[in-house]
């Protein structure tokens, strides 16, 4: 592959572009503009299928959903039953202790499980990237947990984390630990138990993505680094990590979105308990909507969730600018 020195090639092309057009074109009513080497509508053509589907299937329901946040509605009474109440839901929300508490729990839950899962996923991907016997089998084994449905996974983990007879506590006891955690029976340990479960379920899944990204990395950089005598740690910090910045950004944002939305497992396993210790914002939304039939308030909670995640993603996005390998 021929590598042009960037400056020269660019200069050439600029020169071409600013050269005067041949006379023929001046007879046309609209001279065809070529932006960046293509017609203006070309990128839009590429984006259009996604755009159409996003508008129809995300934006439109989203707008309807958001509008509901300004109403009082129980869905069952149909469209006649919608009552516009403006910002009342939001006023109530700000004074609702359960809202603040559940938001805090969401932050704790996602804030611990996302970095931990990603770290483990990266370590696994690095380890699985090296040729070794049984690598395929290993990859499958780590990926499997993400495939299991909530009921099956929940039932299994209940058994494993049984405070008296579960494997984990038995092991901890054998290692000499006193005051074993109560896991799902304790208000302090239920959320950590969920974090543990989510690491198990997510690390392999993330390692698949990281593996693909690692295999995308240019080998020549590594080769030249090794020639220069860089050790594995240095190679990691100067090449691998920066190269993974786009993927890591993507994962932080999407994982955070995912963790702050999921409630199916909580609904089956703990129903928000014991007490309120696992009532995260998404579960609270579920309770308000599906148990109390207050869909207006639930939608308002959803709007707050959206704002929170959006702000966070924006922050992550700004942070990762100009830190990658290619920027």
């Amino acid at each position, binding site marked *: 592959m021929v590598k042009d020195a960037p400056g020269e090639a660019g200069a050439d092309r600029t020169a071409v572009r600013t050269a005067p057009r041949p006379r023929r074109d001046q007879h046309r009513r609209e001279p065809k503009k070529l932006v960046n080497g293509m017609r203006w509508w070309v990128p839009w053509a590429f984006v259009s299928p996604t755009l159409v589907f996003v508008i129809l299937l995300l934006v439109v329901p989203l707008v309807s959903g958001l509008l509901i946040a300004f109403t009082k509605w129980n869905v069952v009474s149909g469209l006649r039953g919608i009552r516009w109440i403006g910002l009342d839901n939001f006023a109530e929300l700000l004074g609702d202790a359960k809202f603040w508490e559940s938001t805090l729990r969401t932050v704790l839950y996602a804030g611990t499980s996302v970095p931990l899962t990603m770290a483990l996923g990266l370590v696994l991907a690095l380890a699985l990237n090296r040729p070794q016997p049984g690598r395929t089998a290993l990859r499958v084994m780590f990926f499997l947990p993400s*495939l299991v449905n909530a009921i*099956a996974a929940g039932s299994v*983990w209940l*058994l494993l984390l049984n405070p008296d007879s579960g494997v984990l506590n038995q092991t901890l006891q054998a290692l000499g630990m006193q005051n074993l955690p109560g896991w799902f029976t304790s208000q302090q340990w239920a959320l950590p138990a969920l974090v543990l479960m989510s690491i198990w379920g997510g690390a392999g899944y993330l390692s698949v993505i990281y593996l693909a990204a690692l295999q995308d990395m240019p080998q020549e950089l590594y080769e030249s680094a090794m020639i220069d005598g860089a050790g594995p740690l240095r190679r990691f910090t100067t090449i691998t990590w920066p190269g993974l910045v786009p993927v890591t950004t993507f994962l932080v944002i999407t994982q955070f*979105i995912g963790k702050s939305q999921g409630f199916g497992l909580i609904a089956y396993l703990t129903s928000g308990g014991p007490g309120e210790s696992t009532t995260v914002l998404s579960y609270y939304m579920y309770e308000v909507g599906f148990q109390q039939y207050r869909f207006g308030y639930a939608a308002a909670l959803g709007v707050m969730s959206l704002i929170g995640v959006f702000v966070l993603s924006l922050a992550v996005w700004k942070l990762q600018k100009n830190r990658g390998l290619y920027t």
Partner: protein
Amino acid sequence: MTATLTPERPAVHPELVRRRRRQRLGYFSGGAVLWVVALVFMVPFLWMISSSLKRDIDVFSIPVQWIPNPVEWGNYLTVWTGPKSMARYFLNSGFVVVLRIIGELFVVSLAGYAFGQLRFKGQNVLFLVFLATSMVPGQLLLVPRFMFFRQIGLYDTLWALILPSLASVFGTFLMRQHFASAPRELGEAARLDGASEWRIFWSVYLPMARPILAALAILIFDASWNDFEGPLIMISSESKYTVPLGLTRFMAEDGTVSAGLAMAGSVSSLVPVIVIFFIFQRHFLQSMARVGLR
């Protein structure tokens, strides 16, 4: 007999030998640790498999019985050949999943390419809007989507499960990140040569994306195979049930679960995913060999 003169061993620096031995040891123990962790990860599955072969009453016995006694093969028979066997659900899920993968891969690589490699006005704003829409909690969309699909007559069809995935912001995001880190010179050179954008995309950049596409295919498979919320809301005819919905048959209307059957169903539903994973992951392993593209 004269003693054969053994040639002296070549002078190898002892330090190098030691380092190599350490490396090999590190390598070996690293591998061993990996296997131990992998087996720990597998423990829940071993329990699931073991439970799927038990009678309901034995499933939750404490202390945990790892070897089922007696072994109840009947659970699998019921799941597969019983009055409403799961075979139909597997077909439905398979149909949905294949179409979702093909459709989504196509649509998101197009959009990801545009966002990642092409420059056009409004692209950042548009992308942020995309991203924002995906941050909405899914529950907010359930009722409006239900009404929408009712309106367009796709309620209770498998298409109602396929189409929403074509609005995949996750996939678009992933492909965008991938294409953004691909070298631009190739495209620019090709444009100079007069190649159409479509050709550049199809013949130059898309083949390079094979590893990430394979990864995404696996993830789409995983998400759609286990999607429960979508079918729960959109499907009502039992003949159109997908696998996760089918598993709910083992839960009665008062919330009690037939544990053995539910586990047999769950284990059965894992098999296709494992197979697909094996196939696809080998694929992106192979394409690693395409060093020449870089």
